[in-house]
């Protein structure tokens, strides 16, 4: 019995860190929730010129939609190549390595690159397009990794069955493997969006402005975004925290609901795919 008491002590020691993690999370949540009362929600639909944040919310959504439209297809197709086509292990290995490294590049460096390459070299200027491209670079590795995982989880027998019936390779993949992997692929895309939704450093130099009138009229105009606004107001303008609480909270809610939906989607679909239960 003394062995079991010792074990309990060890588990308590191991468990305390987990409790600390949970505490940190609830602490952050409670901090943000305490400010909820002081936020005036009608500001959501009021223009920034009247002190609202309508353009920032829509601007953030613009940035995310555009980046997804670029990184989504490229990422998914890349994942399909890596899982289903990639011929030599050496090449796959190099691409794999590149994706891992791309995922590890600090966002500030991506921002620097975006500024010199998209804004200056490609002459896009500080614009929505430059922001899309920069954010797409950040989303890409997440989408590729997630989609790859989803595709790998689909048993090869699905595809082989279609091949045996005389389907071409692409036809076989697109009619069997892809539908089965679709939930995982969509999850990875949402995760990618969530990852860049609150991104500041990458769009700091490439696509955001503090104030302008209305929404961008063309993809070559700059945009207002929640994260940038929060950052500049606190760091450069020294605005007291209470005044930007609303922005912080809206940003938090957008990002958290995105990633929460991705997590729930994943849990839901793992339960719904019987071949994933076999280990």
């Amino acid at each position, binding site marked *: 019995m003394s062995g*079991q008491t010792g074990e309990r002590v060890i588990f308590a020691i191991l*468990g305390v860190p*987990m409790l600390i993690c949970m505490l940190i999370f609830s602490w952050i949540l409670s901090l943000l929730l305490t400010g909820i009362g002081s936020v005036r929600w009608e500001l959501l639909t009021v223009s920034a010129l009247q002190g609202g944040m309508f353009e920032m919310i829509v601007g953030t959504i613009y940035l995310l939609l555009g980046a997804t439209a670029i990184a989504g297809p490229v990422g998914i197709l890349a994942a399909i190549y890596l899982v289903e*086509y990639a011929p030599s292990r050496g*090449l796959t290995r190099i691409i794999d390595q590149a994706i891992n490294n791309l995922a590890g590049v600090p966002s*500030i460096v991506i921002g620097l690159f975006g500024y010199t*390459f998209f804004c200056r070299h490609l002459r896009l200027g500080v614009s929505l397009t430059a922001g899309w491209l920069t954010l797409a670079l950040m989303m890409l590795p997440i989408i590729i990794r997630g989609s790859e995982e989803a595709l790998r989880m689909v048993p090869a027998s699905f595809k082989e069955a279609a091949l045996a019936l005389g389907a071409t390779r692409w036809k076989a993949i697109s009619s069997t493997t892809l539908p089965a992997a679709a939930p995982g692929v969509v999850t990875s895309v949402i995760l990618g969006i969530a990852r860049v939704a609150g991104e500041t450093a990458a769009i700091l130099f490439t696509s955001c402005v503090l104030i302008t009138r209305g929404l961008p009229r063309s993809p070559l105009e700059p945009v207002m975004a929640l994260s940038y606004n929060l950052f500049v107001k606190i760091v450069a303008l020294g605005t007291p925290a209470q005044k930007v609480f609303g922005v912080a909270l809206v940003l938090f809610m957008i*990002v*958290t609901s995105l990633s929460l939906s991705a997590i729930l989607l994943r849990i839901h679909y793992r339960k719904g795919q019987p071949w994933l239960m076999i280990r």
Partner: protein
Amino acid sequence: MNLESFLKSLHKLFMRLKSQPVEFILFFCASFSIVILLLMFLFVVKEGSLAFVRLGVQLIFGQRWETNSDLYGGFPLVYGSLMVVSGALVISVPLGICTSIFIAEVLPFQLRDPVKSIIELLASIPSVIYGFIGATFLAPLIASIFELHSGATALTASLILAIMVLPTIVGVSGETISAVPRDYKEAALALGASKWQIIRNVVLPFSKSGMLASVMLGFGRAIGETVAVLMVAGNVAMVPTPPWNYLAPVYPVTAVIAMQMGEAAVGSLEYSALFGLGSILFIITFVVNTIADVIVRRGPVTRGVQL
């Protein structure tokens, strides 16, 4: 692989791609990452070349960073980065690894998914929100605990960073723990091993390389973190006195880039020095990621390696 056979396989690949348009498109998408990575390195280093040429090692080892007098010595900045990151890792590595073990091996099944999800959510909170929380809640707390005038210190930055890299460490080491083959665990269980004995004798030896990789990845994430650090580190470009004084402000590399990029006139020495710092950062994270990658690959996948 020698060059000739590499070229041969490359040629074969191209022949295949030519005959199959679908495959060609897919290949193009897949190789996109390599192209981007190369471009990134090329352009960041190119913009930094002026500083490398004019300042040389001074950019890394110079003691003073003073824009007004055109002095760009990155040492205090690099030191600040390393200080903040090591502080963060000292806090988050034990926390993260214990948590991942606890979740995978001890926590009741029903609780695993919710707990993992919550930790994953921590990862997705934007860094500007972390900065906001750090600046508005944590810094005053630190100030009052240690009776400082300002809570913007290396310690505050380390704490915030620790929270930010925790999910990375928990996630990656959790993955390697769940990759421990069930066979081994069952064999040990059948011998009457207790849960703790299984953790110590089976799980830990098996997943230690994965855990090391998670620490490396955590390091990579932490050293690249910008906005949150900038908002809480105090941003004073000096090595604290004494050098281990965590209650002094520091000015990490990423914060300098984010703060001064706007100031710098394009093409000036300052501009180039910032890109120089950027390429140093790029190289550091590249090396760390590659090491982590190698560790992961060498890790638990191969059966029959002496543990």
